[in-house]
């Protein structure tokens, strides 16, 4: 018989191939993914779990006998699980994320950024929990190491359980905004021959480290492992200035500022790409 998983009232109901039925209270159930499986967990500890491999997704149906795909099962689980273990009770899944820390760790007075260090993660370079490679490093190469042979930097602070952002190195010569977009779109690094683009201004700003000792916002490891990015002053973003469409937003790495620049002027760029994460394989 087909295996069933569906929502009924405040529960997820599952019926497996042996006709074993289970109820997962929606307000007490979380799900996550690892090694190509979905894992439902009821409660915090000492409760049963249900694990469904990605490959098995299509063998499950909903209460209308409609078969799932891996994607629709993921959507179902995301919409019908999630609880608040810290407060014990909102019943609502996290819909956002705390903003990342700026990495200002020197305090100049009570109540300033360096005093409060508000934000997500242990620090700017250290995640609060392990990335798929089992380390807490925010930045790794695409193999989870610190080698950066391909000059690709993966930023695990952007990992949502499915995709993660990775950045390439900069060319050293400036270009106009149009050429920067064209060049970013045609970027090819190793086996990652497509999918690159010019980052938007949010994606560029997320890399700025307010704890650098100098005035260059990218002059920190592992960016210093790349050939050019950390010694380039201005980066184009793909974001047009909303009130002056002949201009685009730029990141001024040498002063850690954001400004506007006429699109026909020249600046540098770094390409960005969304990598799909399956276990420890990035595609």
């Amino acid at each position, binding site marked *: 018989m087909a*295996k069933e998983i569906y929502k009924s009232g405040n529960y997820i109901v599952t019926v497996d*191939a042996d006709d074993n039925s289970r109820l997962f209270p929606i307000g007490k159930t979380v799900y*996550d993914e*690892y090694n*190509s499986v979905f894992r439902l967990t009821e409660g915090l*500890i*000492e409760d*049963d779990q*249900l*694990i469904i*491999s990605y*490959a*098995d997704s299509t*063998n499950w149906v909903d209460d209308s006998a409609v078969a799932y795909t891996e994607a629709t099962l993921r959507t179902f689980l995301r919409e019908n699980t999630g609880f*608040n*273990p810290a407060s014990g009770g*909102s*019943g609502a899944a*996290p*819909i*956002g*994320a*705390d*903003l990342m*820390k*700026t990495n*200002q760790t020197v305090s100049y007075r*009570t*109540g*300033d*950024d360096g005093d*409060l260090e*508000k934000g*997500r993660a242990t620090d700017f370079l250290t995640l609060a929990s*392990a990335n798929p490679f089992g380390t807490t490093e925010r930045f790794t190469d695409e193999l989870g190491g610190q080698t950066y042979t391909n000059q690709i930097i993966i*930023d*695990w602070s952007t*990992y949502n*359980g499915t995709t993660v952002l990775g950045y390439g190195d900069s060319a050293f010569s400036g270009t106009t905004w149009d050429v920067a*977009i064209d060049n*970013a779109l045609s970027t090819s690094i190793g086996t990652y021959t497509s999918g690159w*683009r*010019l980052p*938007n*201004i949010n994606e560029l*700003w997320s890399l700025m480290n*307010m704890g650098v*000792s100098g*005035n260059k916002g990218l002059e920190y490891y592992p960016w210093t492992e790349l050939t050019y990015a950390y010694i380039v002053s201005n980066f184009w973003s*793909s*974001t*047009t*200035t*909303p*009130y002056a469409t002949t201009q685009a*937003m730029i990141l001024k790495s040498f002063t*850690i*500022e954001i*400004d*506007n620049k006429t699109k026909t002027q020249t600046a540098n760029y770094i390409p960005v790409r969304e990598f799909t994460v399956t276990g420890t394989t990035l595609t």
Partner: protein
Amino acid sequence: MVQETYYIKAQASGGGGSVGATLMKSGLTTSYRTGDDGDIEAGRATDFFTLASNNPFGTTERFTDVLGTQVYSDKIFIDWSTYDGTTVLGYGDATFLTYNWNDAIDTALAWSVGSFTSGWRLPNINEMFNIFNHGVTGNKLIAYFPFTLQTGGGQSSILWSSTRLSFSTTNAYYAQNFTGGIRYTSLTNTYNICPVRDFTVNGTTLT
């Protein structure tokens, strides 16, 4: 070989979950060419104002007041894009008064709105940049609802952050609402503030 379906006893909670989050969209939705921000609209959520799933009040609105509505009687603007399951950021209104950086921090720390009499502070530069909407029609990137309800804040040209420069410590960063810029200036200059607070979420009660 992964087993197709099986039950196991949990060892502990939490392992293997996501360690981060996709960055929010910039808000720009107009495209000027293939491959630009307005074309790709990369980022989290349905759009700048709409969450991909419900906030604890059962709506997909990114911004609400502390009661989950769009009334904003106490001029507190909750940003559910920052909700981590436990806490969420809320921005307060401020008068149109300007302060030097030290006074800005003191004023924010002493801020009190309704029953939320403590816990306010000056936002860091990431928290200021976070509410810039690059899809506005004018030149003020915080001039969108609900921040248009603010007396100061979204109506101000420059808003202090709590972040000093690491390489020039007599300066601090500010958000330039009127240009979308992030810049720095001397601590002695006087600008506006938009206090921020971490709210703890229990069900639909924010404390």
